[in-house]
């Protein structure tokens, strides 16, 4: 039991000592895993890069959405304006105001059939 405790204390001491001396990673043979560590770093970098690019794209999307919204509003206003002009009474009034001889039809349009 005493031997076991001494062994653990020795291991702990050597770990602390190696941490202090800076060769803990070499002790753990992490140098063998170095390519994987590099790979993990690369994945992390790619992940950050992709997030950044995604944000950039979403900013463009957001900008386009605002632009589309503006166009939709413009379209809605124009539609409203032109629909109002489509009213028979309005057309007749406008023709009258411009002094035109054109009047509303007094008979139905002729139908051309094949």
């Amino acid at each position: 039991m005493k031997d076991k405790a001494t062994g653990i204390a020795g291991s702990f001491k050597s770990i602390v000592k190696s941490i202090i001396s800076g060769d803990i990673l070499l002790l753990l043979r992490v140098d063998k895993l170095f390519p994987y560590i590099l790979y993990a770093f690369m994945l992390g970098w790619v992940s950050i890069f992709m997030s950044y690019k995604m944000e950039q794209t979403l900013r463009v999307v957001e900008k386009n959405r605002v632009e589309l919204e503006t166009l939709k509003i413009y379209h809605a206003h124009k539609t409203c304006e032109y629909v109002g002009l489509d009213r028979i009474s309005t057309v007749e009034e406008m023709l009258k105001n411009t002094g035109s001889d054109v009047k509303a039809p007094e008979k139905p349009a002729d139908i051309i059939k094949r």
Partner: protein
Amino acid sequence: MQNHNTEEKGRRRTSNMLILFHVVFLCMAVAIIGKIVYLQFIWEPDPRYVKYFQPKKDKNEIDPQRGSIIDYKGKLLAMSTPMYNVHMDCYVLKEEYASMKDKEKGAKKEQEWISKAQQLADKLPEVLKEDGRNAAYYRDLILTGRRNKRRYVAIAKDIDHSTLLELKKLPLFCEGRNQSGMIIEEEETRQYPYDGLARRVIGYVRNNSDTNALHIGIEGEYNHHLRGKKGVEWMKVTDGKGMIQNMDSSFVAVENGLDIRTTLDINIQDIADRSLRANMAQEEDIVGGCVVVLDVETGAIRAMVNLQKDKRGEFREVFNMAAGRPAEPGSVFKAVTMTTLLEDGLIKLEDKLPTNHGVMSDMPKVNRDEYITSYERNNGVNQISIIDGFKISSNYVFRRLVKDNYGEKPEKFINRLHEYNFGEAYEFELEESGSARPRIPDPESAGWTIYDLVSVAIGYSVRVTPLQVATFYNAIANNGKMMKPYVVESIEDEGRVVRNFKPQILNGSICSKATADTLTRALKMVTLEGTASRLKNAKCTVAGKTGTSRMHLTNEERAGSRDPYSDINGRKKHQATFVGFFPADQPKYTAIVVVYTGLMSNNVYGGKIPAMTFKDIVDGIWAYDTEWGNVIKEKGSIPQMREEPISTAKGEDAPVPDLKGLGLKDAIFAIENNGYRFSHSGTGHVVSQTPKAGTKAKKGDKISIVLK
């Protein structure tokens, strides 16, 4: 040896220093990790500052777009568009300029701002075009606001998008919110492109969250379909200070409102509205009127006009009288009586009865029918046929017929009226029908007398709405099939039909086809030779009936008079009606025109203003509906198309065309087509030309080109 010791000492010192550094960094790493663990699991920030320690997120509530209301051909009757209110923070940057270390520079900046504000004020009247607001007004508004530290000064209200864009281009405003203090507020606003047309049927709301007027018209009745559902999205700030949707947060998609397709035809509505307004304007005492146009086959309402005179004397859509104002219909009800008599096989149109000077000798309380005495006088006869009685709208004839045929069994006659759906308010999409319960007297009731029966025969003692009368006439036009009038065709989502409202039959056969044909013949006679002869020259043959009834006065209106229909000065209120269908032989539309008067000494008749309005409506619809146009077949004469001569030179002073980059062929075409001559050198494409493009040359002048 000494050197060796010195080196050893130096190496050890270096090693110790490195170990020291290493330990320091190690301690720092431990401290940082410890701090992270502490912050993550133990530390709790002051609640007041929590928001500053969290990434900025904005909850964005997306308002749904309210659905549109369209007519049955797809024309927009109501739609939602954003409108803008523009305010100005007049005090913007003033403090910053005042607190500048370089006072002179601050004063100069302030002066520049004021100068731009003055330029803005000069331009604002041109863009906003508001009465009484000139450049001086805006200049005073802005500069006073700046002096008085006002940060929210109203510049423009309810402007559209185009105007907003123009405003944004003006001096100062073009520099953005932070420089100009321009504050733009967007508000979704309901637009009605046809203004007040069919306003009562369509309804009115200011915007999607307006709950005040929602009980009116389609806007009110179908609000739950039109309004849609709000959406929610979370936004976050990006590194570039932009806002983007936070994909990690929950998202509720906005559901825009559904569109309502009505049965209205806005052109027919316009024709009916215009005709009614024009004709009502002829009689000062008319206080309101309504028109309903129905599609014969389906009962779809193509137009529903309700105009009431307001305090300023203008006619406006205020109340749905067509569906919500039951009243005694008068002589238009004689067609109902005649249908019953014909259907029961009790009369033929040519049957005759004695005129008896228009007096019901067995009913002393009934007034003499003056139309009969005139008829006797004009025709020198003492008998009148039923068709003639119908043409002149004789009360005596119809009272006599009903008294003689149903006097002993009045319930048979009254039950017929219930079969025609006059006894109940059928479900109608628009709200007023709920309160507009018709009234038919009950022969079983204690107050019933034979006078009620003869009164019902001529359209008194019953209360029905104009829409119900039109529905009955529509059934006659439809060979006895009574269709339920309806105003909503379908509910749609982006053009896809979600729910379709099919035509509904109220009564599959209120009468036989033979009865319907006979009645149509009688109704045609009314417009050709009877009380509605004003319709004789209508573009289509019309079958219809006039009706004039006096209206019950309130106690206040009677002012002590015993007569329920007139005041102490003998003045009465009238309801004048014309109802019919056209073309009479192949009916496509049924229409009713009703006008209401205030208290007046004269009479208003259904054969005058209502019939004139009806004629204008018939003529208008006839010209508008292509279905009734002449069909040109193979042998029709179509004007021969002629080839237009190709115009070449564009006149003596036509500018020289730009030829650079063109090949030789194209360049020659362009030169000669404009009436010039040419010379060239080289091959390839034109690199230079003399004279230059845009200069003026005379026809026939030479243009030299160099190709490379």
